[in-house]
């Protein structure tokens, strides 16, 4: 009986420890959608995003190599990386560092779907701006899946040009971030 209680206690402790450890993934994804009625081409995806979540502190972060965004159209990808747009040679990385602001509402040790609010800073094209968004966190065993979407104003990050002014590229593209931590 004592052994059984000890085993249960150990299992519980292990789960709790695991649930509180910083988790990372290198297979998070970011979708970027700047399509308009005039142009369906400016959208891309990056499936090699590095992301982390710390259930104990609520710290969340992601990093993306800008040149890892893949477009279906080569010309659009060239424009995206060019000096006039994201200038990925000068600014090769996009990062987000933030915090879950309602951490008490998320129980990482218990299976369930939780709504979180996240506040942080997005750095892109040499500019850093605050981002406030909501995220869905699904806890299933040892896995934690987070999904969030938000829009950014390209002008906040000094990304401007004729295509944006002409309505061919959305001024406030939608960003979707999905990260699955195992």
């Amino acid at each position: 009986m004592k052994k059984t209680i000890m085993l249960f206690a150990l299992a519980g402790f292990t789960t709790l420890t695991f649930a509180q450890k910083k988790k990372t993934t290198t297979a998070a994804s970011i979708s970027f959608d700047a399509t308009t009625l005039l142009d369906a081409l400016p959208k891309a995806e990056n499936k090699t995003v590095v992301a982390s979540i710390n259930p104990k502190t609520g710290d969340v972060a992601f990093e993306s190599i800008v040149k890892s965004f893949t477009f279906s159209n080569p010309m659009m990808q060239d424009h995206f990386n060019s000096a006039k747009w994201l200038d990925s040679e000068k600014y090769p990385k996009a990062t987000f560092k933030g915090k879950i602001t309602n951490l008490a509402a998320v129980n990482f040790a218990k299976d369930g779907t939780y709504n979180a609010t996240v506040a942080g800073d997005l750095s892109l094209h040499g500019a850093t701006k605050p981002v406030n968004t909501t995220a869905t966190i699904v806890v299933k065993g040892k896995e934690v899946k987070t999904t969030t979407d938000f829009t950014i104003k390209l002008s906040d990050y000094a990304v401007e040009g004729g295509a944006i002014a002409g309505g061919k590229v959305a001024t406030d593209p939608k960003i979707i971030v999905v990260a699955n931590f195992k």
Partner: protein
Amino acid sequence: MYFNFYNMFTEHKKKTRWVKRIFIIGALFLVIGVLVAWFIFTDTFDDTNKQKANIEINALDLIKQFETSDSSANKKFTEKIILVRGRVSETEIVDSIINIKMIDTTTNGTILFAFQQQNINDTKSLKVGDSIAIKGSCSGGVYSEILETEIINFKRCLVIK
């Protein structure tokens, strides 16, 4: 009177001929413009399988070059088709994403390979430790503050059998 009428007639004929020429040239330019635009906007990336590798390199050598100086390594490798030989360190499967990693265990420097949709199935049989060659487009490398190591990304990859 007759003379004037004749002059007017030939003048009119000349004008009509010029209008016709301008119209034909304009239409030709329009057709060429539409064709060029159609070609540019419907263009897609070539299958990596059909592209020749610019560089062939061992995974650990590639990581070392990025760790030594990622700015000079980025100039050398980024946006080039590269064939990388090495051992599978990890396979990360998330929903429809399957990424293969090659890691230098002494520094944790990591190469991340994302695959072409048509070649994802080839990765399913890969196991940790398998010695393979992967061809893809290098997206460059940066220092990851999250992983505290150098990471190098590849896109549009396929496993070379």
